[in-house]
Each structure stands twice: as C-alpha cells, then as structure tokens.
C-alpha cells in the first residue's frame, strides 16, 4: 500500500480517538463525581440530602436544602432582571438600530462577556453591595448588610446579558424575512410586527436562551460567592444573605479533607450542578439546532 494512504489512515484513527475521548469527557465527569459521592449517598438518603436544611458537617449532617434554595433565589432574581432588558436590547439591535450603531455596540457587549468573574465580584463588593445596603434595603427592611440575594442577582444578571443577547440575535436572524415583510405590507407597525410575528416565531428560541442563561447562572461561582453573604440558611427576602451551591463547594475545599464525608458531600453538590446543567444545556441546544436547521 502507498505510504501516503497509510499515513492518511493512521491520522484518521488518531484524530478519531482524540475526538471520541474528548466527547467521553462528559461521561467521565459524571462517573468521577458520582464515584466520589457514593459514600454520602450510602450514609444519607437522597431525599434527606436534597430536602433537609440541617448542615452540620462535624456531626455528619448534610442537608442541601438551604444551598439549593440560595441557588434558586439568586438565579431567579438574575433572570427576572436580565431577561426583559436583554430581550429589549436584542430586539433593538436586530430590528431598529442603524447598522453603524450595531457594529459599535456588539463588540462592547462581547467585552462584557470577556470580563473575568472575579472582577465582577470586586465591582459587586465596591458598588452593588453598598448601594443596596444604603439606598435600597432601608426602604424595605430594618437591616441588611448588602451582601444579599439581590446583590448576587444583579451581578449575575449583568454577567448573563451577553449570553442572552447573542443567542437571541441568532434566533431573530433565523426568522424568515418574508414573514415580517408580509406583516409590514398589510399595514402593521414595526412594533406590531415584532410582537405578532418575530416574537411568536422565535418563542422556542427565547425559551432555549433563557434555559441556557439559567444554567450559566446556576454554575457561576466566584462572583456570586463574593457578594451574597454565604450564610447557610434559606433566605426569606431578597435582602437576606444566601449561600448558593457553587459557593459552598468553593469555600470549603480547604477543610473538606479533614472532616469525614465532607469531601463526598461537596462532590455530591458538584454532581447536582453537573446533572442539572447538563440536562438544561442539552435540551436548549437541541431546540436551537432544530431552529437553525429549519431555517437552512
């Protein structure tokens, strides 16, 4: 056989091996984290782990309810703030803004996604936390340190703006132009066209974008950890401190090897995050791929 063909076949097999093994990383992460969480799953029932808020590692009491509640609160606030703003911004950029303006604004929005999480955290500590403590919280509650669900939500919202705007931009671009033109030609205003045609047609895409944003917010660690107070109790209002799951993992890596089952409990927390985010990501990517294929 020709040496060139042999080389071609050899390269093909090496490349295939690398491709398959890097895809297998998804499975490997699951197996690795599951393997480490087996001890805690043996000692405590799954429902107790998920629904009890008793958190006393030294007494081998591991209940994640407060941390799960913290994660859900922060994520909810972030989405409530980010979704309307990003939706309006994405509509503006794709439908109204002159091209020169979009060419100026898009790189700025990309820049927002390039800022490291820890810098968002510093900004949150310097600006958002004091602002909430001095100007927002006093109108609603007696005392808040500012390190709160709201602070985490605001910082996270800014972090997920670029993600939502970029995906919505693609989704809107995939809506056939003819539909909008038909609507405009029968006398609808541009806003009516957006409301009845564009948004209606891109509803699955919007849902997918939100789900992706939720999973990004779920996993964000350092920025949230720095501003949300880290008190292991379920928050009662947005001005209370909370303690999301990723913050729990990051904060206790140092001491987890010295307390029995602690490391297993934290790896279980990572497993919860992984499974939820995996499902959310896979679901929304499948929706987005389908939308794109329908367009082409």
């Amino acid at each position, binding site marked *: 056989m020709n040496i060139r*063909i042999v*080389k*071609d076949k050899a*390269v*093909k097999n*090496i*490349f*295939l091996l*690398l*491709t398959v093994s*890097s*895809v297998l*990383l998804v499975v490997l*992460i699951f197996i*690795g*984290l599951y393997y480490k969480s087996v001890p805690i799953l043996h000692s405590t029932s799954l429902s107790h782990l998920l629904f009890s808020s008793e958190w006393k590692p030294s007494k081998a009491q591991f209940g994640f309810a407060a941390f799960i509640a913290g994660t859900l609160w922060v994520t909810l606030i972030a989405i409530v703030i980010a979704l309307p*703003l990003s939706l*309006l*911004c994405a*509509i*503006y*950029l794709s439908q*109204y803004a002159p091209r020169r303006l979009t060419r100026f*604004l898009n790189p*700025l*929005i*990309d*820049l*927002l996604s*390039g*800022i*490291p*999480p*820890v*810098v968002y955290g*510093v*900004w949150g500590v*310097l600006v958002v936390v004091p602002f909430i403590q001095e100007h927002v919280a006093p109108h609603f509650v007696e005392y808040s340190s500012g390190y709160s669900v709201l602070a985490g939500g605001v910082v996270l919202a800014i972090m997920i*703006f670029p993600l939502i*705007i970029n995906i919505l931009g693609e989704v809107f671009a995939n809506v056939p132009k003819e539909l909008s033109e038909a609507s405009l030609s029968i006398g609808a*205003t541009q*806003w*009516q066209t957006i409301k009845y045609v564009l948004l209606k047609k891109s509803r699955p895409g919007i849902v997918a974008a939100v789900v*992706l944003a939720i*999973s*990004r917010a779920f996993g*964000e*660690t*350092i920025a949230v950890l*720095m501003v949300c107070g880290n008190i292991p109790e379920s928050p009662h209002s947005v001005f209370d401190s909370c303690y999301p799951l*990723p913050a729990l993992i*990051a904060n206790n*890596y140092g001491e987890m090897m010295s307390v029995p089952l602690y490391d297993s409990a934290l790896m279980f927390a*990572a497993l919860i995050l992984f499974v939820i*985010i*995996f499902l959310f990501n*896979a679901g929304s*990517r*499948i929706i987005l*791929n389908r939308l794109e294929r329908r367009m082409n």
Partner: protein
Amino acid sequence: MNKRKIEETFFKGLMHAATIVIVGSLFLILWTVVSKGFHAFNWDMVSKVPEGGFYIGKGGGILNAIIGSVYITVGSALLGLVISIPVVLYLNVYSKKGSRFASATRLAFDVLFGIPSIVYGAFGFTIMVFFGLKTSLLAGIITVTLLIIPILVRAMDEVVRVIPFELSDAAYSLGATRWETAKVLLRQSVPGIITALLLSFGRAIGDAACVLFTAGYTDNIPTSLHQPTATLPLAIFFQLSSPIPEVQERAYAAALILTVIVLIISIAAKYFSKKFSKNKI
C-alpha cells in the same frame, strides 16, 4: 396620536433604555475598576513577589500570581490546541457531511461549553486524588485545559466550517489524501486559530474556580510543574477578603491588572477575526 403609534414609541423608548443600561453597566464596571485600581497601583505590584508581612499590608507585589497565571494560561492553551485541532479536522475533513457522529460531537461540545468551571475544578480534584497528585501547576494546567477545549473546538469549528468547499475539492482533484487536504484547510484557518487561542487565553486567565482546587496558592514563582502556583483571580479574591485596608487596596490594583490583560486579549482577538474576514476567498 394613534394608539398604535403610542405603543410603538413607548416600546422603542424602553429598548433605548435597556440598551443604555446594558452598555452603561459595562462602562460602570470598567470605571469602578480603573478609578479604584489606578489609585492603589504601583510598579512594585507587577515587579515583586510578596515580601514578609505582605498580607498585613507590607511591601511586595503579585508578580508570583501574574507569572503563575501566564504559565497556566499558555500551558493549557498549547495542550488544548494539540487536542482540539485534530478534533476540528476530524469533524470537517474525515467525517461525512451531515453525519450523525459529527452533529452529536458538536452537540457534546456545546454542552461541555456550558459546564461551569467549578464542576471542572471539582472533577480535576477527583482526578488528582485518584492519581495521588498534589495541588500543582501541572494539575492546574490539566484542569484548565479541560475547561478551554470546548471553547477552542467551537471557535475553530466555526472558522473551518465556512472555508469554501472548492478549496478542499481542488486539493482532492489534485490527488491529495484527506490528511493532505486537512493541512491545506489548517493553513487557510490560521487567523481563526489565533482568534480561538486568544479567546481561550481570556477565559483561562480569568477563571478562578478551576484553579482553586487544583493549582493551590504560594508566594513563590513555581520552578517546576509539580509545585503549586498562585494565580491572578485568586490573588484578587484572597486579598479582597482580608480585613486590612492596604491589602484590599491591592486587590483593586490586581483587578485592574487582570482587567487590562483581558481587554488587550479581547481586542487582539477582535483584530485577528477581522483580519480573517478580509482574507476570505
């Protein structure tokens, strides 16, 4: 005025406001970091390692963290390229167009792209325990590599995918094998590869959650792969949580340094991707 017109004007106003809020938040963040950081910045920060009593406000800088971050970023980017270039070439040259395997692989990388760095960090930690590694530069590089492979693959795949099929057809018609054609495509996408590389630099240098578990922290500049290393995001994080004002000030200056590095990287990435779109055939 007509009711429809009022609605149109109202929502247009809202859109303007939303866009201003979003872009404004970028400038607010940059302004905060620059004004606070510039005040606290001095050249010792970038030229010295921490001296005795650094963490109670005495002299020294964070050169250890800057060098550590550069080591981790460059090391993981190189390792990441070695793995991701073959993946991209396999997807675009060897697998058939529209094959199930290729689309499943792309989906898997989309999903991996969304996995947060804390999960990679925890996974890296389990690997370390499994192989008996200690927190070290090597463990940090491996974990960050896992984090950036999806970024590299997705960014390069986008570039290689849009290379006109005439180019590979021309190569095939001259009798080239798939491997030889792959080399042609690779050459054509060099600017795209550089953009992808810069993107992964930006992500790797700013990430804290991955290295928290795996790279450790030290006041020295590592001299071998088996020593722990400091990183910039962790230097910021640890100094900010100190109760001493001088040390907190340093965190602001370190945040400024990190932000400037990341901004330079993203602007360079923009430049290269623009250059690429000019050279399109």
